[in-house]
């Protein structure tokens, strides 16, 4: 695929919905170790609502649609991750402005705004063992690939690899936000639920792009 159009965004949302559903139990378990265990449930709620909205929506511009999806997620999943992911979609969508197709450059802009929105909202940074630690490397990879003139497929592939590496790296980090932060050093070595969600999001985009 050379660029994402509005219809592709809808497909991605359907993909994301299936993906979190399939991983609902895993996410719940990861969040259960050091959090309250609701992550699987809330992410399923979030992406079910977003996928339904995407199906229903007649919004022609991808950016506007993505913003709208953010608002829907915020309402459907009022948890930390719900709010952060919602923020990501809203900020990412806003950054796209009136773009009608997303090539490597636009996808990089989207993910950059996405992760920056989360960092701003969560007052957090890379290295804190959160969703940022998968999204941030993915966004950087997209930027690099776009600057090098790579194709969308190739850029998405690099982003996916970077996110996977990010998840691995983040597992060795010490949690500094949310409930997990109470566990301090004990959090080292444990996989973070939020980082996992970040990976699933990147993966969803990747899969649809290279399909």
């Amino acid at each position, binding site marked *: 695929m050379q660029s994402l159009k509005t219809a592709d965004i809808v497909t991605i949302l359907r993909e994301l919905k299936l993906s979190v559903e399939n991983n609902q139990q895993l996410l719940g378990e990861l969040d259960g170790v050091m959090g309250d265990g609701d992550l699987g449930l809330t992410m399923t709620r979030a992406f079910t609502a977003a996928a339904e909205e995407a199906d229903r929506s007649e919004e022609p511009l991808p950016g506007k649609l993505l913003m709208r999806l953010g608002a829907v997620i915020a309402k459907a999943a009022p948890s930390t991750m719900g*709010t952060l992911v919602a923020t990501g979609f809203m900020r990412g969508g806003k950054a796209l402005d009136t773009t009608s197709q997303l090539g490597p450059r636009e996808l990089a802009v989207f993910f950059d705004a996405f992760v920056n929105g989360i960092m701003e909202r*969560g007052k957090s940074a890379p290295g804190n063992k959160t969703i940022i630690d998968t999204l941030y490397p993915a966004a950087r990879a997209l930027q690099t690939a776009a600057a090098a003139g790579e194709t969308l497929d190739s850029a998405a592939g690099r982003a996916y690899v970077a996110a996977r590496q990010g998840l691995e790296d983040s597992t060795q980090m010490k949690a500094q936000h949310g409930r997990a932060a109470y566990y301090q050093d004990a959090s080292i070595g444990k996989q973070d639920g939020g980082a996992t969600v970040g990976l699933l999001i990147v993966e969803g985009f990747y899969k649809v792009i290279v399909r």
Partner: protein
Amino acid sequence: MNDPRLFVDEMLEGIVVAHPGQLISVAGDLRCIVRGGDKTAGKVGIATGGGSGHLPLFLGYIGKGMLDGCAVGGVFQSPSADQMLEVTRAIDSGAGVLYIYGNYGGDIMNFDMAAELADMEGIKVEQVVAGEDVASAPKGEEGKRRGVAGIFFVYKIAGALAGEGASLAAVKKVAEKVSAGVRTMGVALSPCIVPEVGRPSFQLGENEMEIGMGIHGEPGIHRGPLQTADEIVTQITGRLLEDLPFRKGDEVAILLNGLGATPKEELYILGRKLHRILKEKQITVFHTYVGEFATSMEMAGASISLLRLDDELRRLLAQPADTPFFTQFQL
């Protein structure tokens, strides 16, 4: 108590039926509470929100001369951005909405989000994050301080100015001024219990106390054997005075707040010593508020807040207010 999982919603149903006309829930959500009656066109709306378990905080100050709406979270949990947005929609009369809330991560995230959503709908929103617990971060790092009972003063004064028809910018400015001029410190004698959890959030021995503990049981600055009321007040007041600092000739308002299980008798015994210290330091007291203004379930303990007044703040503080939990005639 009934089913702990219904704690918040049953409480809210009880509050709404107890104060008909004064409080109503909107958007079909008991957790979105706004002031009853018609909106005043052109009046800046003031919204707040936060976790349950702190009554009268947060919804208790909705009413004439104070707040217009509140989003209510679970016990010690932030309400959602969406609930905040519903409240914002319900109270905006075109003049914009000011969010005033305490400095807690979850609340900030959700209010930020709500502000962004409201902005998308064309509602002007400004925010003031109150944080004045001297024990929660050192001088120089005021921005990290937790918001506790002192937020009452922010509500009271911003609410009075909004009631006069001031602009969103002006109401925000005065709220920031109050926020900057108030200092709080507390002492806990027993832990608090979250109903759904059912056990104390931390342990404190029979004859132990902890100075500076947060209202969710966040660690304080000194734990030790129980001291006398006078010793506690001396210690806390010393910290408060040097922090702002309050100086000879200043005029202040006092808020003596019980955390939930402390007899009012004890609060007045604390107040006695506080007045003596302030008199000695030649700091005048304009008004003393005593009671439960920000609690933590059945935690035993108290906090002392001091607000430095100037002519503007004094005038606004003195104005009447009429809410379910706080009523004041013109002082």
